[in-house]
């Protein structure tokens, strides 16, 4: 009964789109769910990777990120509109060149009752910036030159260069503020949190459960609404889905595309969907044949039916990306021109580039996430219409990192949405980008990105980023076929859950249990 299936699918898409609209409307505030927050109750949330470490400087899995977010506070938080919002810092100011920032701390205390002071912030940031920490935060916090405590409640950051995005970046999960005294023993931080977050640690059994309870001394008297959260490890998606259906858990934060329809149509379960800037990209090294010829890159881009790819690879749960790595959710966004789908013209372009009989290429894809392989297989099939004979080669992650990433001529990349436009441009595409992997470089592009860092004027920055985007799209170091949606599911009594376009913020302190929630005893 294919027609029925199609119509049901269309229906699903429509309802998910409604959710999308709702979350878009609710940007900047909590999601616009009905009802007033209620106090109490234990939320059971499933994850499919263990939180192996509670150390904010090196959480590895999404479960770890969630744990850190529950147990720690940062200077700022990142709102669903990707702006910086107050957390431990109640306010901040910057100089005109965006080279000096001053943060004013609110009155808050660590879980052991001692106050959060500027010294703790300085100690934390210093520790993160120590190369020995191997913290991802070290590279993502921008050009910090020095941090100093002006007084007990004031911290000043001096930067090496301009970096307008500092308050946003400091909202990341890697820059949560750790009690200065606890930094002396990083190993203890793996299992013993020293933070000031909305929840206190109750139990941590890696691979099984992370259990937290409401922090009565949290600086916000309202939140968290929940009495506690149990994060249960279900080591794979199937088990997670079953647990949600059975009512063993309340929230499933990462639903696979293949499972979403089934879950969302189950009674008592609500599917959640949010558009993100997470993307897969086809990396075509511009210094390696055959992709050293822009015409070949454009031919490949034109051979791909983006809508069909979204349908085939993502089952519709995503949006075409038109080859820019910046999603509409990013601040200071300008839309790029629509990507053209024209296989005949693509074939023509290939012929012009000297490949009248088509061209062969090996497309590498790492085995995880599996979407990479799926995309590769689909690209192989679509591109064949334009004369590309692509051999897909799936490789293990370590081989990918050792031999493919930044080395091979043609492969599938996979990245999460950046907090700022600056982040991925600077990392992937500028000449000195730490992970520049396409071989493409353009002095004008570098200049534009640097200029955008220097200015705090939003309109100017938007214009600069638009120019940068135009350079990228016209030179095509990447084909970015689509942005992914994040799919989640919750029991219908779970309220206040606002999916974030970024991967990390979960904002579970804003969730509450509404009518019909099961009463659970400790």
């Amino acid at each position, binding site marked *: 009964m294919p027609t029925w299936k199609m119509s049901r699918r269309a229906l699903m898409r429509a309802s998910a789109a409604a959710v999308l609209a709702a979350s878009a409307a609710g940007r900047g505030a909590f999601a616009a769910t009905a009802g007033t927050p209620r106090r109490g109750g234990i939320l059971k949330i499933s994850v499919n990777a263990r939180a192996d470490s509670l150390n904010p400087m090196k959480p590895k899995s999404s479960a770890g990120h969630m744990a850190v977010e529950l147990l720690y506070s940062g200077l700022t938080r990142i709102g669903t509109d990707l702006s910086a919002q107050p957390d431990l810092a109640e306010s901040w100011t910057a100089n005109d060149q965006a080279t000096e920032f001053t943060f004013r701390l609110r009155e808050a205390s660590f879980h052991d009752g001692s106050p959060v002071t500027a010294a703790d912030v300085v100690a934390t940031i210093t520790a993160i910036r120590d190369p020995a920490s191997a913290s991802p935060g070290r590279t993502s916090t921008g050009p910090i030159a020095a941090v100093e405590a002006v007084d007990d409640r004031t911290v000043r950051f001096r930067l090496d260069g301009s970096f307008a995005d500092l308050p946003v970046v400091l909202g990341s999960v890697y820059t949560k503020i750790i009690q200065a005294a606890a930094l002396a023993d990083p190993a203890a931080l793996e299992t013993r949190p020293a933070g000031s977050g909305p929840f206190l640690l109750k139990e941590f059994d890696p691979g099984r459960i992370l259990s937290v309870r409401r922090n009565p001394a949290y600086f916000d008297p309202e939140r968290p609404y929940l009495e506690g959260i149990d994060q249960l490890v279900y080591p794979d998606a199937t088990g997670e889905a079953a647990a949600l259906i059975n009512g063993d858990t309340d929230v499933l934060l990462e639903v696979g595309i293949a499972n979403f329809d089934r879950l969302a149509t189950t009674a008592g379960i609500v599917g959640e969907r949010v558009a993100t800037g997470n993307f897969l990209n086809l990396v075509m090294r511009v210094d390696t044949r055959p992709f050293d010829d822009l015409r070949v890159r454009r031919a490949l881009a034109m051979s791909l039916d983006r809508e069909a790819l979204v349908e*085939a690879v993502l089952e519709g749960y995503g949006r075409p990306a038109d080859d820019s790595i910046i999603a509409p959710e990013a601040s200071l966004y300008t839309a790029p021109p629509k990507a053209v789908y024209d296989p005949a013209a693509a074939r023509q372009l290939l012929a012009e580039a000297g490949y009248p009989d088509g061209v062969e290429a090996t497309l590498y894809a790492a*085995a995880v996430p599996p979407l990479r*392989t799926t995309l*590769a297989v*689909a690209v*192989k*099939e679509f591109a064949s219409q334009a004369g590309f004979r692509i051999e897909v080669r*799936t*490789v*293990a992650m370590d081989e990918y990192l050792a031999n493919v990433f930044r080395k091979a001529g043609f492969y599938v990349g996979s990245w999460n949405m950046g907090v700022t436009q600056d982040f991925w441009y600077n990392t992937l595409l500028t000449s000195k980008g730490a992970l520049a992997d396409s071989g493409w470089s353009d002095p004008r592009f570098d200049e534009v990105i640097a200029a955008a860092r220097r200015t705090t004027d939003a309109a100017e920055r938007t214009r600069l980023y638009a120019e940068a985007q135009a350079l990228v799209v016209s030179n095509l170091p990447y084909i970015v076929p689509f942005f992914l949606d994040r799919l989640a599911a919750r029991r219908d009594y779970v309220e206040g859950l606002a999916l974030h376009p970024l991967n990390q913020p979960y904002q579970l302190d804003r969730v509450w249990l509404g009518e019909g929630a099961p009463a659970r005893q400790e």
Partner: protein
Amino acid sequence: MAEGWSRLARNPAGLTGAVILSFLLLVIVAGPALAPYDPTTFHLTRRLEGPSLDFLLGTDQFGRDLLSRILTGARPAVLFGVGATALAVLGGGVAGMASGYVGGLIDEVAMRALDVVLAVPGLLFALLIVTVLGSGSANAMLAVAVSFLPGFARLARAGTLSIRERDFVAAAIARGEAHGYILRREILPNLMPPIVVEASVRVAHALMIGATLSYLGLGAQAPDSDWGLLVAEARDYLFRNGWLLACPALAIGISALGFNLLGDGLRDLLNPELDA
């Protein structure tokens, strides 16, 4: 030969196995030609359908024809099983026979080395090797061959040791035959039956391990039509199109059954005393 066939005909297990394998052979030779569609072609409007007249076994998540994928997957699957076993028989057989025949310190050392390898369960060893060599059918085949090798070496060695003690070998030594002749004509023909029987059962086993490795993402890789990979991919669509899982699983099962039954049949068939 004719005698062999008539004996096979009287052996229901062997006969069933032979029939299954003949059919499998047909699929291997003619499979791609029999396939109604190109196994990689997408039919994006017909995704995840059940069996229909257009698609006899239904379609997968890209709307690829499942029947065509299974038919083209037969050759690599069986070649995998046969190839891995053949390598193991060759390597293990030669090593075991040599070790058993030469005896002494060399044999002792070789057997202790095998003990060490055998202390790691076979599948785990194969996993370890694939991890080192990298995923892919060829590497997986090599890994399975290596993990089978000690078994065949032991079998060949044990056989050689016991045959070497038999009086017909003693007679050959006593009349001054060269080692080559003794190995080739006196020992090898007697060693072959148990090895052939074991090998045919092992092919089934290798086929299954191959599928398992593909399932674990360590063997064949997309967009291959490997049966194990088909099952692995079908897992995501378990509740949406069960055919995707059932059909390749059945293909694996039936092929393995064929080789197993053949092994059982051969066990009886190659026993010369049976109908004496």
